[in-house]
């Protein structure tokens, strides 16, 4: 054996040097594309390299958002609900539809992703007609609570609304309402009737202009 097996041989006879053969360009191109694909794949599927993100969640934020909402309203929420709201809406949350008092359990007005409409109703009251869960409440009149008693306090109102939105016995499981959200809406509406005044009730057409989900 006279040839080094791993080095190119000159062509027999013609004395010319054989050209070194390089890597085929398409293979290098394929490598580049594959690496690019790999980076995209890792970006989409690696869950930010977090220890708590399992497929198919893409980010930690989504895992957090998917957590069941049981942060809880605290005792203030239930206490004030029973004191103030249950007279009409009942402790069961089923309301008294025959007397024009709509239910809160399973109500789409309660369970909307954003609580903005619900906060307005609680602050300024509601003038019907309104349709709740397919049932029409024509002569409904809900008084305003934004200026009354315990519910002038943003924290307390937030707790009551959270209690309503997260009441498991009624089958409600929506996000909590924060005092900041209540304050923000209260402040934004101060021009409606002046500070501390909550006399103009909301109507359904007005509420429908307010977004109830992102």
């Amino acid at each position, binding site marked *: 054996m006279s040839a*080094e097996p791993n080095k190119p041989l000159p062509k027999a006879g013609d004395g010319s040097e054989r050209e070194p053969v390089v890597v*085929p360009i398409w293979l290098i191109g394929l490598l580049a594309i594959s690496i690019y694909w790999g980076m995209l794949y890792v970006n989409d599927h690696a869950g930010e390299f977090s220890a708590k993100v399992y497929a198919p969640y893409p980010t930690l934020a989504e895992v957090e958002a998917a957590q069941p909402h049981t942060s809880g309203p605290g005792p203030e929420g239930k206490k004030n609900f029973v004191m103030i709201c249950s007279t009409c809406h009942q402790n069961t949350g089923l309301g008294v539809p025959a007397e024009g008092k709509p239910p809160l359990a399973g109500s789409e007005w309660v369970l909307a992703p954003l609580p903005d409409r619900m906060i307005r109703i609680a602050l300024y009251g509601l003038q019907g007609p309104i349709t709740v869960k397919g049932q029409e409440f024509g002569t409904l009149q809900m008084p305003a609570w934004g200026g009354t008693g315990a519910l002038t306090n943003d924290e307390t109102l937030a707790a009551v609304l959270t209690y309503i939105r997260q009441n498991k016995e009624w089958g409600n499981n929506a996000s909590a309402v924060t005092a900041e959200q209540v304050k923000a809406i209260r402040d934004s509406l101060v021009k409606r009737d002046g500070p501390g005044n909550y006399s103009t009730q909301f109507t359904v057409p007005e509420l429908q202009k307010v977004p109830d989900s992102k």
Partner: protein
Amino acid sequence: MTAIPLTSQSQSVAPGLVTAPTVTDAEIDASCQAPILLLFANAAVWLFIGSVLGLLATLKFHQPEILANCAWFTYGRVHPAQMNAFIYGFGVPTGLAVLLWIVCQTGRVRLALPQVVVAGALLWNAGVTLGLIGILYGDSTGFEWLEMPRYGSIPMLAGYLIIGVMAMLTLHQRRERALQISQWFLLTALLWFAWIYTTANFLLVAFPARGVVQPVIDSWYINNLTNIWFGFIGIATLFYLVPKLIDNPLYSRYLAVFLFWTLLFFGSWTAVGPGAPMPAWIPAVSTVGTVLLLIPTLAFAITLKKTMECQTQKAKTSLPFQFLFFAPPAYLLSRLALVVTSLARVSVVTQFTWFTPAVTQLFLYGFFAMTMFGAIYYIAPRLLGTAFPSPKLVKFHFSLALFGILLYSLPLAIGGVRQGYALNDASLSLQNTLDSWLMCLRVSTLGELLMVLANLLLLVNLGAIIYCRASVEAKAAWVANKIAGVRP
């Protein structure tokens, strides 16, 4: 074989070394003879034993009562015994033997301290024996491909380190200083096995990591062993022997270097499959590594195809070449199957089915073992100075091995896919899913039987050539004694 003295190359001999007279092939082979033949012989024995155990394991799916009352032969012990016998009894020793021989040949240097290498080989063998007995006894560690208990794995590691150090010493003493591409592959594999084996045993057996880190490390070890040890050694052997056999140089050194680096990176970045119970990044990164294995696989296929283009007539008469010819397609097919099944949409069907062992066996036996058979049939006659007494038996070995692996892995792969669909159909109870793959497994048992016979033939052939050589020497000695008047 006539010794062809090589003129010294443009690269100078290492400074400090006295320019010793060039070494002949015969001298190199004589220095390697004892350790390499010992490694080959041990490996052939373990290969046969392993395949018999494998046959027993498969037969249990035909008739679960076979040897069922003996704890030593329950499926859960025979199966790991088979895998460990193949990997550590056959795979690693033949890889080491071929590594030593190629290092000596390419470096144009005698093997350093052959007796020490023999001691290392014996130590390794002792470890394998103890380890296999331990597995059958029930001392399995619980980690796939690492089931050997400590009293087996520690002697094995010691033996490996001894042989490894001798290989490095031989390399250091080499006359031909330029490193050929085969040596790149071999040396990387040599060092990486020590690293992964030590890490895996340390973090799984000695000081076990907590929780799900264990299977991550186990999968990392398995994939690195497959891609880096078996892959690199097989590729190196092919890159060295094929050009020699067909008298045509390797297609492109640059492509081989490209293959080296891409396989090194992507082959080592594979571990678990999609859907595994670990944070999403571990399967994600692993999937990327596995899919990117496509690149080195293509590079390897192109290199060998172009090298062997139009040259195979010369090699048709060569016994080892038949084995080496089958190995690259097996590599290509098994790695492509691996790439495809690492994607989530496909692994929904193939994960946890017989498809994975089918592909693994195609790689281990169809690629690695076939390459090693070719190497054995090439090296052994050179070491012993005599040809194999029966070329027909060698051809028969090839036929049995070829049909064996095809009949084993293809039906099993089909069975695996059918099993996957059946498992995903929740209306089928688990017992009813058996119908989807049991027949395929029974067909693959025939393949397993052929492989057992093939491995037996390897033993027979090796035994025959060693006996032949021994008997030639004995006859020569007997004649010499007669002439000298010494009583026998």
